[in-house]
């Protein structure tokens, strides 16, 4: 069986839900896909934070539609995780009890309106690097979910960049707001790609299984290369004194993120870890009677139907 599985990976064929797969491959995927789904759902909170304060009707519509898209991504990822034999209740329970992780970036606060643009431009931009790669991931349902998600994410990133453009080319107050937001979001965004390759415990196996196809450092480098010229165009300064073009490597050299901060946020001690989880738990608990009512009503209707 294992040989059949390996041969399939070798030929770059997709693994499908009914196929045999090693237990650890299944476990790795359940963990990765559900974390990814949780990230989408938790990610609704920092952005949703600004919906009622969006400064124009168009900006409000764009933001609401975006946050709704994130929820939709969460939904198809939960569904993809279910094809591996887990249930929504199980994965939500793992989130609510703090057992499951989600992307650390969402533990940072959105303090000003400029943060919403930054989340679109930088955070979605970084997420896309990872997600484009995952379109070719070896597990079929995950790969297909990513194809759909990528289309919407690249749209979000353009909208985020457009929003930052309004600020960068706007009034002095707007430009200052954008620079301040860039200063706060730059390093956390670089940390989104995860630890450096020599310190990433799950990466090697994931690459072997073709779940991941590029390393954390490769993706991080590509993101920096792409983003620097965009910041230059906007007239914004990337807060890294070590950032410079390396002719030999044909890539930007850049400084080292504060990995102690990363470790602290992952361990639950970031600025908003408690608030984010508390908001999800509150919504879930307060929704309990709503879900119970829907279930009870559906049962009664079925009884009436079968009695008739």
């Amino acid at each position: 069986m294992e040989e059949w599985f390996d041969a399939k990976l070798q030929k770059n064929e997709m693994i499908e839900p009914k196929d045999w797969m090693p237990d650890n491959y299944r476990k790795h995927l359940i963990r990765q896909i559900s974390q990814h789904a949780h990230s989408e759902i938790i990610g609704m909170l920092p952005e949703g934070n600004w919906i009622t304060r969006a400064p124009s009707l168009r900006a409000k519509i764009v933001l609401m539609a975006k946050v709704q898209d994130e929820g939709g991504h969460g939904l198809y990822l939960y569904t993809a995780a279910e094809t591996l034999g887990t249930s929504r209740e199980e994965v939500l329970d793992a989130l609510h009890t703090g057992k499951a992780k989600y992307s650390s970036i969402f533990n940072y606060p959105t303090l000003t309106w400029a943060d919403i643009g930054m989340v679109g431009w930088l955070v979605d931009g970084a997420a896309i690097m990872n997600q484009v790669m995952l379109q070719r991931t070896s597990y079929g349902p995950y790969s297909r979910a990513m194809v759909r998600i990528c289309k919407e994410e690249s749209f979000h990133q353009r909208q985020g960049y457009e929003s930052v453009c309004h600020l960068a080319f706007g009034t002095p107050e707007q430009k200052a707001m954008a620079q301040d937001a860039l200063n706060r979001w730059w390093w956390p965004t670089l940390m989104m790609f995860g630890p450096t390759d020599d310190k990433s415990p799950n990466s090697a196996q994931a690459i072997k299984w073709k779940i991941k196809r590029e390393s954390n450092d490769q993706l991080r480098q590509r993101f920096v290369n792409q983003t620097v010229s965009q910041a230059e165009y906007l007239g914004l300064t990337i807060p890294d004194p070590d950032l410079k073009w390396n002719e030999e490597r044909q890539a930007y050299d850049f400084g080292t993120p504060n990995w102690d901060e990363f470790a602290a946020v992952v361990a639950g001690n970031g600025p908003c870890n408690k608030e984010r989880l508390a908001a999800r738990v509150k919504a879930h608990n307060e929704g309990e009677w709503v879900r119970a009512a829907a279930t009870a009503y559906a049962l009664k209707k079925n009884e009436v139907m079968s009695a008739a």
Partner: protein
Amino acid sequence: MNKQEALFSYTLRLADNGLILSQRLAAWTGHGPFLEEDLALTNIALDILGQAKSLLEYAGQVEGKGRSEDDLAFLRGEREFYNTQLVEQPNGDYAKTIARQYFVDVFDFHFYTALANSKDETLAGIAAKSIKEITYHVRHSGSWMLRFGGGTEESKQRLQDAVNDLWRYTGEQFEMNEVDALLIKEGIAVDMTAVKAAWDKQVINILNEASITTPLVAVMQTGSRQGKHTEHLGYILAEMQYLPRVIPGAKW
């Protein structure tokens, strides 16, 4: 009051209903009772905000003073808003949000169906487009009314409480003043008498089906047609409008 002033006031009234209701609904985004419902409610909020945006844009054109939809949304004060007091009521629990939504959805369904025949082509066009969305909204909120009424004891009690709280704000939807009188003569505005009859029938039917007692309220709240609101509106506007007021003249 001339026809142009009446049309401005009338369009603004419709726009403000959507603007304020969508502002309330949007606060649920990311906090809904379960994911599918979170997405559905956000979708409804987006439809309603889209309708409000078109109406505000048109109101600005009718007024002819160069005010954009954003100027009208973000730079008017509490006494210049004409939405009903119903739509500014707090979200409360999900039963209150749904009851408020159902009362508005049924109103909108009958109102916009009639407005689609308006002699004002822009209003008729916006109405015709909105009807498709509103048809879905009524189905959504109506099915939750039945689920809550027929679900558990708790859900039924919560819905009954919500209906009791909100009922006194429902009458205002049908009020007519000199604006309506003038525009009805022009074939532009909708006669609320027929809308009220249709609303009463449909809402009382669903309350009966959901085993919810229809409240007996002697006095309906009033005032929004004169820009008089509940205390809630000031807070809604403070939150919604603060940024364009902090950096005046900025583009977003």
